[in-house]
């Protein structure tokens, strides 16, 4: 029986010209020698994979900054993947790109690679915000990158914004959103700035040199993002992701949220089989060294219990406009969420936090407090 073509392939490119102070991904500064070594190792890892039961119809180059590598290197990686895995001929390919790397030649290269969705790390159109975030492009470069990417004819051009910066005035955020909406990309991701442990921002916060916005202020900005994008015709299909049409959504990322299997290759990449999750070595030396020694660079794995899968299904489902499939939750995991939480859910519906119509969906107000909603629900699984 031929496998259903549904799985996603994630390929991690860890390099950045400089590491942003808020980033907690597996990244390191670009250097020619280590890039060459990494590409060889990634190809080596792909050659060791044996995922015969999976067929892939989406591929995602994430990072770091995939645009830090030459298109030829990315192509070699793709070739290696295609050589080893069952990847659909016309698989949907997405790629993260930094504005400063966008040039007509680069865009041509990515088009040739078969990129369907180009995701641009614009982050803001305010000079001082970009400097605070440690970005290396200017507002003008951000704007130019979006325009040129749109002109180049990708199926989907997406731009990322970061909001909730310390001291951020709603007016400045609104300005960035409006500028982006004017440029009219098909897809927008809006992430609230999160201070992760181990990042320079976290260190600064511990020293009292970085004051995060209060919860109420963050809520205000969050609302602003959602109302502004919604009125511009972008619908939130996930807590932080907006698209004008269904075709404009990130086909790959949606797989993370409905427990579709995905395979990750590269530094610190995570994989999921539907039941098991495993992840790669996050240390560059260790990762390359192990692959060079002919060994898979695995760092850990977990087998998910039904209770854990059910909790994830609730947590991920409530982050999406599609909501949570209550019937599936009941038949697969034996969790009757409505019955167990009747009064609470009624209250959420009354308060305009949720909609219950066979599925349980959070409204845009509900999205803002999705974590608290998940915490409050009793799954009866402990």
């Amino acid at each position, binding site marked *: 029986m031929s496998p259903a073509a549904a799985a996603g392939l994630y390929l991690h490119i860890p390099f950045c010209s400089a590491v942003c102070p808020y980033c907690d991904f597996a990244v390191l500064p670009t250097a020619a020698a280590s890039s060459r070594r990494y590409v060889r190792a990634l190809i080596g890892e792909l050659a060791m994979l044996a995922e015969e039961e999976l067929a892939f119809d989406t591929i995602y180059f994430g990072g770091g900054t995939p645009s830090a590598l030459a298109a030829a290197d990315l192509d070699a990686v793709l070739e290696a993947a295609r050589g080893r895995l069952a990847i659909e001929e016309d698989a949907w390919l997405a790629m993260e790109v930094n504005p400063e790397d966008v040039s007509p030649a680069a865009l041509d290269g990515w088009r040739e690679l078969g990129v369907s969705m180009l995701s641009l790390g614009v982050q803001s159109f305010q000079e001082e915000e970009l400097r605070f975030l440690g970005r290396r492009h200017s507002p003008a470069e951000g704007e130019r990158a979006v325009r040129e990417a749109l002109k180049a004819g990708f199926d989907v051009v997406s731009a990322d914004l970061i909001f909730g910066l310390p001291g951020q005035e709603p007016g400045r955020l609104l300005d960035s959103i409006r500028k982006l909406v004017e440029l009219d990309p098909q897809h927008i991701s809006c992430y609230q*700035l999160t201070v992760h442990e181990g990042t320079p921002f976290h260190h600064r916060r511990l020293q009292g040199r970085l004051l995060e916005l209060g919860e109420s202020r963050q809520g*205000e900005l969050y609302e602003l993002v959602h109302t502004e994008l919604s009125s511009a015709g972008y619908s939130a299909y996930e807590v932080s992701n907006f698209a004008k049409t269904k075709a404009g959504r990130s086909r790959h990322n949606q797989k993370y949220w409905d427990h579709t299997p995905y395979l990750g290759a590269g530094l610190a990449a995570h994989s999921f089989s539907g039941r098991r999750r495993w992840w790669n070595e996050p240390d560059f030396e260790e990762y390359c060294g192990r692959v060079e020694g002919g060994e898979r660079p695995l760092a850990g794995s977990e087998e998910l219990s039904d209770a854990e899968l059910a909790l994830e299904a609730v947590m*991920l489902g409530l982050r999406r406009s599609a909501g949570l499939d209550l019937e599936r939750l009941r038949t697969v995991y034996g969790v009757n969420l409505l019955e167990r939480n009747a009064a609470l859910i009624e209250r959420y519906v009354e*308060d305009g*936090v949720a909609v219950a119509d066979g599925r349980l969906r959070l409204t845009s107000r509900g999205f803002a407090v*999705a974590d608290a909603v998940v*915490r409050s629900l009793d799954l009866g699984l*402990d």
Partner: protein
Amino acid sequence: MDLERERGITIKSNTVTLEYTAADGETYQLNLIDTPGHVDFSHEVRRSLMSCEGALLLVDASQGVEAQTVANLYLAMEYELDLVPVINKIDLPAADIDRVSEEIDADLGLDPFEAIQCSAKNNVGVDEVLEAIVGRLPPPGGDPEAPLKALVFDAQYDKYRGVVMLVRVQDGVIRKGQSIRLMHTGADHVVEEVGYLKLEKVATGTLATGGVGYVIAGIKTIQDINIGDTMTETERPAQEPIPGYREAKPVVYSSVYPMSSEDYGDLTKALDKLKLNDAALTFTKVSSAALGFGFRCGFLGLLHLDIVQERLEREFGMSLLLSAPTVQYDVTLTNGEPLEVDNPSFFPDAGDVECVEEPYIKASIMIPEKFLGAVMELCREQRGEKTQFDYLAVGRVEVTSEMPLAEVLFDFYDRLKTVTRGYGSFDYEALDYRKTDIVKVDIMVNKERVDALSQLVHRDKARARALHYCDKLSETIPKHQFKIPIQGTIGGTIIARKTINAFRKDVTAKCYGGDITRKRKLLDKQKKGKQKMKMVGSVEIPQEAFIAVLKTEKEK
């Protein structure tokens, strides 16, 4: 008890018999009883004093004369005991013997030149104390031939031997094998063992007239005897019991719940065991919608409550939640029926209440003069009546006030300590029950009544108390996904209100590949943490909230 050593207080009476060869060459047998000094245990002090001919009145060389020193002096005088004042702990760096001597003169009316200066720790003045017992206190009287009459002034529980009664023989003799009768309970027992308490029990076979010692008579539990009862012979009973018998009755009530409801069984066992040693403790089963099963406990006072709580936590490893302490109210219903209420849950509807009476005390507060204004004001705020003051000496004042016991229970100690910067001492005696205007204040969280937080409060104070509760709850209950109104109500009328605003923002920004495991583990942990919360409707109330409402503001 470790607790006694740590706090430097006596909770249970103890007794020791020692042989002492005095300066005159004679060997004397001294029977000494150590009593608590705190007002909560005044029934024990009373019984101990009843068993004695004289008393050493210990005054701490650094603390000086306190309100409870005066109270205990009066008790001793009531029993016409001879007194020897002793200034103890003179080794302390803060000892101020001159000041304390003045206080003994002015506050107690005793001759300071008769006071012995002593440091038991450094063995200074101990011989003088023993000589004073021999020389200045009368020997016991009593008739060795008369029918046995002995006061049971305390009891201990021994897990192998059962009840060990501590007795003072007034007339007659106690012998091993003798059949004795406890005059108030009427029960007969056979003496299995009798003797003196030295550092350990020393069985002697007999206890003669005037002697202080212990009796074991096959009694299983403390509940089977009454402390203060008179022991006599079954064959030849005494005509009259020793007068002055009073049962120690609880005056303060609180509901005690285990932090986690599965520990209810352990709490039951722990209370049963404590009760073996602490006859004054009472408890009956209660249940709360928010806190589950627990016990309504009766205590002799706040210190007693504190000690019981601490013993349950330390000796039995319990983790507890206590409701606000309350007194017992005497309610007369409109149909004329009387009703005693010590639990807000059982307070009748306002329409059924004809009148309510509450217990009053006479408070005695000793302070340096400069705090007089503040303390008088404090007494007024605590609904004190007939507040008066007397100069004890230059710069020292005793304030007396008749006030409801209920006022002492809420925040009196903390506030007294604050307004007198720790220099005030306080003691009280029970007076009587007086008419009062009590209302039941309910606390509603998200429109649901939290039964464990209901209280009985004087009408004039209801609003302030309700606000205090609303404030504390709004500070300790975390934000939820919805607004939570917190209201104080009397019979459905809202008298205080606070609102906990809903979260505006609580969602993780990114949730891709590797984030999912991290996020799930965090959620899992948070969900487990939630199990420690008490659920009232759909609101999670942390345990701290129940503790915080009982705490008062340090500064007003």
